[in-house]
């Protein structure tokens, strides 16, 4: 699954650690999601969408 987390994070000048703290996950998990190695659960995807003020589809796209 592709996602725009890295772009959205860069737009806000956030580090992976900052985003991880906002979403209550580890920095390694953010890194894995950004690289497409780990697909987040629906609750985590909703949390990310709320954080960025977007819909899930705006952030995550099916391959």
């Amino acid at each position, binding site marked *: 699954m592709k996602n725009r987390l890295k772009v959205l994070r860069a737009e806000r000048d956030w580090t992976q650690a900052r985003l*991880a703290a906002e979403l209550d996950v580890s920095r390694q998990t953010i890194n*894995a999601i950004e690289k497409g190695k780990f697909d987040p659960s629906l609750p985590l995807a909703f949390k990310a969408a709320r954080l960025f003020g977007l819909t899930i589809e705006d952030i995550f796209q099916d391959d």
Partner: protein
Amino acid sequence: MTKQDLPQSDWDANNKRNTVRLAWWTAAWVITMAIAVFGAQFVWKSIPWLILTGILVNLAVGVGMIMANRRHLNGLDEMQRKIQLEAMALSLGVGLIGGLAYSNLDVTNLIAFDAEISHLVILMALTYMAGIASGVRRYR
């Protein structure tokens, strides 16, 4: 905000607390195990109530360690839990299959020595650690 300015999140702090708590419970379990075994062998040799007390204390601390481990797992994020689950499944599978095969080698006298439970514990611990290392590498 730089990484240095970033305040430690509640999740991160809680996770660290759970890890430290688990480490203390594990250390306590190992120590009470040593007391139960070596105490019975070298100190209170043939006093049944002391031997039983040592074993019961070790058992009680073991329950505390299990609860601390459960708390630690529940505090992890979803990717960390997935890594743990896969490592534990691997460890359980290898322990069960390897342990029974090892026992069969002993029962059929294909090995000259007794199959010790400690060997199985070592096998499971090494498999678990290999599973964690593999999971961490996969998602890096």
